[in-house]
């Protein structure tokens, strides 16, 4: 197990380096320039700007300098667009926001998703099952860019219960709508995966044996069926968690949270190279880490898996 983790981590480093290299190449091949606007700066100014951000260096040197700063100083450089911020500042400000609403969305999605999935499986082919499945499909088919304005219409405009956006340090009333809007589709997927995998497990031999031994229903489900039934859910949760905590541009855009998703998308439009790279590396690293965590959890839950 230990050697497996070491092996996975060793692979992770070159993976991230390759990610950086590919992002760099893609960035360069996109036409445009971070300093170009409707009114182009005078040539001397442009030259100074390029020198300031190191864009006058050959590509290999830029990449090398960048990687050195990231790896040895954990410094992602200054933002090309926002003059008084560095990428580290932007991540330090935006990531906790995203992490907060992403984490709560994850909790909500997991608790309600698994709960609903189990209920639907136990009460298979009853009205409860149909209701749960209908609810899951319904919420999955409403994308969050539709969900967000509907929530605002109801809770802000009609009922006047919640502020229509903003973050203000992340008070609970600013958290509710982003969490609902972000967790819905994840919750629906989790419910569907849990339901089908639970159904499969409930029909397997060892559950029949447990029932035949006269074990109470609760123990059969929670003591024997749940653990194997959760395996497929688990492999979904790793990427889902990363997806949630690295933010959604839709959530950031509709609720003006100041989260990292907004910066990510804008950085591409603004050709804000350093912000784009910084967030790419952040998301890439988190994806690798959480996929590894899921694999470790797998081994812990499923005795059949040994690394």
């Amino acid at each position, binding site marked *: 197990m230990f050697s497996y983790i070491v092996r996975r981590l060793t692979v992770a480093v070159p993976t991230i380096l390759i990610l950086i290299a590919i992002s760099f190449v893609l960035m360069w091949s*996109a036409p445009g320039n971070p300093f170009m606007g409707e009114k182009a700066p005078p040539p001397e100014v442009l030259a100074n700007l390029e020198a300031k951000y190191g864009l006058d260096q050959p590509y290999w040197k830029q990449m090398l300098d960048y990687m050195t700063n990231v790896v040895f100083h954990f410094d992602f450089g200054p933002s090309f667009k926002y003059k008084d911020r560095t990428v580290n500042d932007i991540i330090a400000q935006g990531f906790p926001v995203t992490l907060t609403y992403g984490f709560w969305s994850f909790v909500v999605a997991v608790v309600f998703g698994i709960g609903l999935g189990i209920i639907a499986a136990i009460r298979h082919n009853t009205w409860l099952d149909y209701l749960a499945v209908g609810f899951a499909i319904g919420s999955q088919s409403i994308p969050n860019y539709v969900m*967000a304005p509907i929530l605002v219409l109801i809770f802000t405009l009609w009922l006047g219960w919640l502020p229509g956006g903003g973050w203000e340090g992340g008070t609970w009333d600013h958290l509710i709508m982003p969490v609902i809007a972000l967790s819905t589709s994840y919750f629906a997927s989790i419910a569907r995966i849990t339901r089908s995998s639970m159904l499969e497990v409930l029909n397997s031999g060892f559950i029949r044996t447990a029932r035949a031994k006269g074990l109470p229903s609760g123990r059969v489900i929670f003591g024997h069926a749940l653990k194997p039934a959760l395996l497929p859910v688990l492999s979904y949760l790793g990427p889902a968690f990363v997806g949630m905590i690295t933010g959604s541009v839709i959530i950031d855009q509709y609720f003006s949270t100041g989260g990292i998703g907004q910066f990510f998308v*804008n950085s591409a439009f603004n050709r804000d190279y350093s912000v784009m790279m910084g967030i790419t590396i952040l998301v890439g690293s988190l994806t690798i880490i959480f996929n590894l965590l899921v694999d470790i959890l797998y081994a812990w839950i499923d005795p059949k898996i040994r690394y």
Partner: protein
Amino acid sequence: MKLKSTLLATSAALLVVTGGMAYADAHATHPVTGEALASDQTFTYQDIDESPSIDPGMVEDVSGSAVARNLFEGLMNQDADGNLIPGVATDFEVSEDKLTYTFHLRDNAKWSNGEPVTAGDFVYAWRRVTDPVTASPYAWFMEITGISGVGPIMAGEAAPDTLGVEAPDDLTLVVHLDQPLPYFAQTVTHATMFPVPQAAIEAHGAEWTRPENIIGNGAYVLTEHVPQERMVMVRSETYWNNAATIIDTVERLIINDETQAFTRWQAGELDLVGVPTGQYLSLKEQYPDEIYSNPRLCTYYYAFNMREDAPEWLQDVRVRQALSLGFDRNVITEGILQAGQIPAYTFTPPTTAGFTVPEVEAAAMTQEERVAKAQALLAEAGYGADNPLTVDILYNTSEGHKSIAIAISQMWKENLGVEATIENMEWGTFLETRGSGQFEIARAGWCGDYNEASTFLDLYSSGSGYNDSGYVNAEVDALLAEAKTSPEAQALYTQVETIAAADAPIMPIYFYTSVGARTAALKGWPDNNVENNWYARDLYLVAE
């Protein structure tokens, strides 16, 4: 030292007390109009995106300039109609030869740390913007101010201290121009020309504009800034005219989605928002008193690529004329945009100060006459049913630009038999493609940097960096050069516009309006300021 700090503390306390009294009074009724004022004077408004910078020397967007106007103050300000009124300077004199401007600064203008605002602060700020080392995206603005020495400094050939601006004493600022410029005094209201605090910039570098570091001389001080979320400004107790300020707090919220912003305005969370595209008419019916549409100093147009390597038909003035005449601008303004925009047949907006729009033929014709003439011109140029003209329209990705491009291409097809393809590009790619002249017809928009026709017409000069058409006309160049010093500049501007209307290097489409929704309680908005320069200290909220 001890004595000094006690003195400072006492005067600060006095300031707070007197400021506090004015504040309490102000809350009862408006000193001029006598209207009852709301007890909570917090003005909350929406901007669509975060500004790259709020440093006056670096600011490059309209919304960032608005922030700078609240946190800083230039030599002169604008009133609700766009006229010059005193700012840090009480008045100024112009020399006989119109080459020297002498500004007299008020002695009670203060930075937010209590230090006096001096003429030296302006000298520092203007040298800083011009210096290519600063790499200000608005350095080019210094060029159009005509201050002597700008060119060589920007080219890196002369030191910044050779700039033609000096401070003989703390309260006198003398500016030398290379040539008389009729609009020079206008330029000092622009954010690029505001003073900046040398000590704070030297101490904190680019981070001097953060709330914990910033020092301003405006009516407000920045207390909070969360990028992409919010900015909070509160009234400055050191501002020389603080007693007249009514709005206590200005909150700027960044809301990217215009529909969402409007919903939040409906819910009472904001005092001022933009109106979602295409919804002006229906919302105006619902909120007749709150929704407004004001003229703006901006023109929407298509540029024809007249460079030598562009397709041959683009060199033919008859084809350019025909395309410009061959579609109905009212379909664009009334059918698509629907927010009071004005069809344009010439480039400079009619609201530009002092400018007389020439009587061009196209503007006077009926649409049937325009189409008939366009058909005749196109036939003359050798295009018709057997030899249809094919053109390509390039625009930057946006639903609004797309609707306009589709409408125009459809009308061209129906009226002239022209086959137009439309192509969109994401902003950065678009700028590069258009800038390098790799297009046939490209969308463009231009807003005046100051309220005088030359801010538009300079784009027709062959040397302009924004002459996307690559238009070269020696007569236009000569007239524009003459206008810089002529007392009859306005007549020359009208003449340039007449020539350009005949040459058709561009195809003007409409003049912009600025459309928004504001709460009925918000008063003092400068509806007649075509540059949309608003100052929060002129606004107030009345009791409802």
